[in-house]
């Protein structure tokens, strides 16, 4: 029995590791293929599976994805431990936040979390470092919710229909994965002959259409896959004026050559993704007729992988990956602008110094265009070696990586004298003037297996990665410096007749380099005016002084996340359990930190002084993640054709600043004619931040009846509680800066008595820092798939078919209690899949 099991286990393990495993002859390969078919037929898995090797990771296969019925990649994340089902929101940017509490931060100050999650599609990472598509000077407009600058990949742009398998590495990634802090999303797409496939999905807000086919020739030596996908989503079904459209087209060629001594495999993928975000105002409504917003995204990428290895039992393999992707992104925004206050200058001065500027007309139409043409190149030669030393089996690899990112767009294009937002002092610049980023990295890693004993085995994965940014100029501290990421995982296996137990410990450093905009931010133009010469109603011009500040932080460091985790679990008679405890500490995540500069200027020979404040990208954020993730999967119980999966997570995330900071948060404005912020700003050594915590548990019962082609899954999705807490902070400044001398002065007892300086102190209510919890909420989600014939299959899903939302009480006014009553509404979608 044991030997049968082991006989099965070996190919299963090999199956999981197949892309990298090369020690197979053709007979073994054939056995594997047939086993793979057999397993996929009988072992339909419609939930994410927990991968136990190397690091904590979730693997979602094609069947699971079909069962989820996703519109975009975002929908797949619900299968992660503790994941919650969210209705598609396709008119907002969707960014990924791994291992963060469900009520976690959405603030841009902690975007390093999603920025540091790497999406690797068919071996090539998706780079967003040159993404600069945002409408400057319009922070609260239509663009703000759609822009993902500095926040990583917008998952709306990833279509799911060509995906064969997704692996989401939540834990410590192998050393081959770089420019990452939080996690890796590894996407492998279909590369095999398939019949014509068609999918049509509709739900309350969107429609999706997909066609695809895989062709094979010469005994599948040549395989060509192609797919075409169209998605049209609306913000609101009754509103046709705000929508999101996406087209993805993919052609993927896989060619194998066999020489006597070598095998060569070449993959060449050409992908196009186009998307259009639209927002207009109903022209039938008289108001704001001219206002419109349109954001277009066109991306073309060409990804090539060449693998070369020995024909017989190989001991080495060489792989070359080259990916080039170019985008043409354009935002066009038009707005009818009415001055809300009478006089405002049209500031077009681009020079430091005094200037006379004209005043804006009372009303005008502003046109703003943003053109971004990011070009990303990724080249990675790597070599893999397979050898034994004593009783140790090694799979070693080493590689060198070059990442190039540059934006060739013209940037923000608009008439400075007719701006979208006339109170903004931002100036346009061409993106092609921003220096390219060149990232050079190398890595070595070794997977070592010690088959020590019949009942004890040991796996050791160690890796080291070095990353450098080159060609930035010597003024950058980061330039040319090599940042080392050591990563290690040690696993102990205890196999026995019915399965195995395992325990593993992993630790690793992860580094994300800053993006182009973080390295080379736009110059800041401070437009100052005289405080004793006012504009009269009859004036047509005004005198200003423009001061130019370069907010480049030459000391900027990469964001670095130190992660460690302990995993334990078993796999006994197909009962699989895994539990992971993890901690991640990123102490220098990117955030804009307020800088203060004292500045003297003259206008019409009168002298003035004031403090200027601006934001500089710094390493001032800390994101500390902690949690326990678990997943139990039962075998399919034959009598009821049902498999149970229980997964969940307790997640606690601390978001706070990690550096002292200036703050004008509680500054009082103008006191006794003195503009306080212009002359005095406090420096606070406080912790500004919050803790978010959640405990989620999902129970999935999926029924698969092969005879009638029916798959039904019911998910009881529960959030046991969520909690939030604001971190205590001390509102007494440590020092203050004065415009008179630009120096920091200690904030002492004398300062605390000064009529102006005393306003810089703020006493926080201790009640502000009380932990607040929201109790249990539960939903029942249902997904049904049914094959109608051999060729067709229909599916539908209902999120929140039932909800369990008990009322709860919170404190109310004057010591009373307030009952909170929660409601939820279901969400439906359905689709039809054809295989011809």
């Amino acid at each position: 029995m044991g030997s049968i099991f082991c006989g099965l286990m070996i190919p299963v393990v090999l199956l999981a590791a197949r892309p990298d495993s090369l020690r197979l002859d053709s007979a073994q390969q054939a056995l594997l293929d047939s086993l793979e078919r057999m397993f996929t037929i009988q072992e339909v898995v419609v939930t994410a599976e927990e991968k136990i090797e190397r690091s904590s990771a979730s693997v979602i296969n094609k069947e699971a994805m079909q069962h989820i019925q996703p519109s975009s990649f975002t929908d797949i994340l619900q299968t992660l431990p503790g994941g919650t089902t969210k209705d598609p929101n396709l008119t907002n940017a969707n960014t990924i936040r791994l291992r963060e509490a469900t009520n976690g931060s959405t603030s841009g100050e902690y975007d390093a979390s999603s920025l540091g999650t790497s999406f690797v599609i068919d071996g090539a990472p998706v780079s967003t470092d040159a993404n600069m598509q945002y409408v400057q000077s319009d922070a609260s407009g239509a663009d703000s919710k759609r822009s993902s600058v500095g926040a990583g990949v917008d998952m709306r742009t990833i279509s799911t229909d060509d995906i064969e398998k997704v692996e989401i590495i939540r834990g410590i990634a192998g050393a081959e994965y770089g420019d990452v802090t939080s996690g890796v999303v590894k996407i492998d797409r279909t590369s095999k002959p398939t019949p014509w496939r068609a999918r049509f999905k509709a739900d309350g807000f969107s429609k999706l259409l997909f066609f695809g086919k895989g062709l094979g020739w010469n005994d599948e030596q040549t395989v060509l896959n192609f797919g075409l996908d169209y998605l049209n989503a609306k913000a609101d079904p009754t509103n046709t004026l705000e929508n999101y459209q996406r087209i993805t087209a993919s052609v993927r060629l896989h060619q194998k050559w066999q020489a006597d001594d070598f095998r060569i495999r070449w993959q060449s993928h050409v992908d196009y993704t186009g998307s259009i975000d639209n927002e207009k105002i109903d022209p039938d409504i008289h108001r704001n007729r001219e206002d419109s917003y349109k954001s277009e995204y066109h991306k073309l990428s060409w990804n090539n992988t060449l693998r070369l290895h020995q024909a017989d039992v190989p001991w080495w393999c060489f792989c070359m990956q080259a990916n080039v992707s170019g985008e043409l992104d354009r935002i066009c925004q038009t707005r009818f602008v009415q001055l809300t206050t009478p006089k405002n200058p049209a500031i077009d001065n681009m020079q430091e110094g005094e200037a006379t500027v004209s005043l804006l007309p009372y009303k005008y139409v502003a046109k703003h265009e943003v053109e971004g043409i990011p070009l990303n190149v990724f080249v990675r030669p790597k070599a893999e070696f397979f050898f034994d030393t004593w009783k140790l089996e090694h799979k070693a690899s080493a590689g060198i990586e070059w990442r190039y990112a540059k934006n060739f767009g013209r940037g923000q294009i608009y008439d400075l004298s007719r701006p979208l937002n006339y109170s903004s002092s931002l100036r346009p610049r061409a993106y092609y003037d921003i220096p390219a980023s060149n990232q050079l990295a190398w890595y070595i890693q070794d997977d070592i297996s010690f088959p020590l004993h019949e009942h004890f085995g040991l796996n050791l994965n160690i890796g080291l990665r070095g990353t450098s940014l080159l060609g930035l100029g010597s003024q950058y501290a980061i330039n040319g410096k090599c940042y080392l990421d050591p990563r290690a995982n040690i696993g102990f296996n205890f196999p026995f007749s019915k399965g195995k137990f395992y325990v593993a410990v992993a630790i690793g450093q992860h580094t994300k380099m800053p993006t182009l905009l973080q390295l080379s931010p736009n110059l800041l133009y401070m437009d100052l005016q005289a405080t004793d010469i006012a504009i009269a109603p009859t004036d047509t011009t005004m005198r200003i002084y423009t001061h130019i500040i370069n907010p480049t932080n030459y000391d900027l460091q990469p964001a670095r996340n130190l992660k460690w985790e302990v995993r334990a679990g078993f796999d006994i008679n197909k009962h699989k359990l895994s539990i992971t405890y993890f901690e991640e500490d990123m102490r220098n995540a990117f955030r804009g930190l307020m800088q203060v500069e004292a500045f003297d200027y003259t206008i019409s020979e009168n002298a003035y002084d004031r403090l200027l404040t601006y934001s500089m990208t710094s390493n001032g954020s800390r994101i500390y993640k902690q949690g326990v993730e678990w997943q139990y999967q039962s075998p399919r119980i034959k009598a009821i054709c049902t498999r149970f999966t229980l997964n969940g997570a307790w997640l606690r995330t601390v978001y706070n600043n990690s550096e002292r900071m200036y703050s004008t948060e509680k500054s009082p404005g103008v006191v006794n004619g003195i503009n306080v912020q212009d002359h005095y700003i406090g420096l606070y050594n406080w912790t500004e931040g919050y803790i978010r915590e959640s405990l989620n548990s999902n129970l999935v019962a999926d029924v698969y009846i092969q005879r009638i082609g029916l798959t039904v899954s019911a998910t009881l999705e529960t959030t046991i509680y969520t909690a939030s807490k604001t971190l205590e902070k001390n509102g007494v400044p440590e020092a203050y800066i004065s415009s008179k001398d630009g120096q920091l002065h200690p904030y002492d007892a004398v300062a605390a008595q000064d009529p102006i300086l005393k306003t810089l102190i703020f006493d926080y209510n201790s009640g502000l820092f009380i932990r607040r919890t929201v109790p249990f909420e539960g939903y029942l989600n249902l997904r049904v798939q049914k094959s109608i014939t051999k060729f067709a299959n229909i599916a539908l899903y209902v999120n929140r078919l039932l909800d369990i939302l008990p009322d709860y009480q919170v404190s109310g006014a004057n010591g009373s209690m307030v009952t909170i009553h929660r409601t939820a509404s279901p969400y439906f979608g359905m689709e039809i899949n054809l295989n011809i």
Partner: protein
Amino acid sequence: MKVERLKIIALFLCLLFVACDQKDINTTAKVTVVLHAEGIDEVSEIELKAHDINMNKDYTESTLVITVPVGYFDFSVRALGDGQAIRAYKRGVKVQHDCTIEMDASYVSQGDDNFVLAEIFFAGTETPEGKRYIGDKYFVVFNNSADTLAADGLILVEADLNSVQKYDLGDQDFRDQYFAVDAMYRIPGDGQTYRVAPGQVLLIADNAMDHTEANANSFDLSVADFEWYDVSSSAGSTDVDNPDVTNLDKIYCYTQTIWVPHNQGHKSFGLARFPEGMTTEDYFADDAYLLQYNYELVTAAGTFSQSKKSYVLPNEWMVDVVNMAPSETFQWLTSSDKLDAGYAYVAPTGSDVTRFGKAVRRKTLGVINERLVLQDTNNSSDDFEMGVPANPFYFKN
């Protein structure tokens, strides 16, 4: 076709009956007013006015009994109670037949210093293109006393507390003692510079200029008596200063840019004076006037602990307070109810788009001794006409 014709005939007959019926019922009614006047022994010089809301027609009587046609009426009584002006008011009374209505009478306030806010325009206007314009806000200050008064030193204030965000201040509730402010602008002068005759007004504008150029739906405020001018060192926020119109002295404002009175009407406004001899330096040096307090923000989702810092004025310094809150979203009075027991509004909700171009205007009590007297019972719910079309010159004409 036939059926249709029958229907029309039937309808016609019905109308005829209705018309005949109408002739038979009473078309007038006798209304008797019972005036509750606590502490007043003798009521004289009564003027009872009934304003027919639908017909826009007034009926007056010198007794407390009046005969009017049936309809909807606003009733008001002006009289002398023990020799002093009193008034009573009841709005929206449906009169169908002879009836008795009860009204509470109260004294017209007659303090030593009787400047009152007569008209407050905080909502801004809407342009012909449907955009908002907020540079044309104004306040009308009215001398409601019998004497010529100097406006020098009168401070225009905006409340720091918000009428639609209720705070549970617990034992730190300071409203009976202080009025928290987020803006203070003072009329300059040496004490006798800006003298205002009884019944006369001062127009205080954000920008004393002709706003019709920027927005055809706005007004020409270039003749305002004062404007508030906010010095800014940033060219992105620029205030306009008409050299021909005196600026108010800026004592304090919560924002370092331009003071724009709360445009949804969530914040109360008032007039105040520092005590004789007190300078702004004295005021800011005294810790008593900068309150730091904790409160519980009361929301539908429970209460949230917060803290706040406010500059405050003792209630005795307040000359007039007009609480503001949209009628449907009102949560609490941000001043002591002794300063103002009610609140005024221009719209049911703060974001109501019909609020643009509308103001609140103090009701007129009448002409007493040849001067116009406005109603000031320290209850703005009663004292103001709500949501009237803004007219900065209403009291000037």
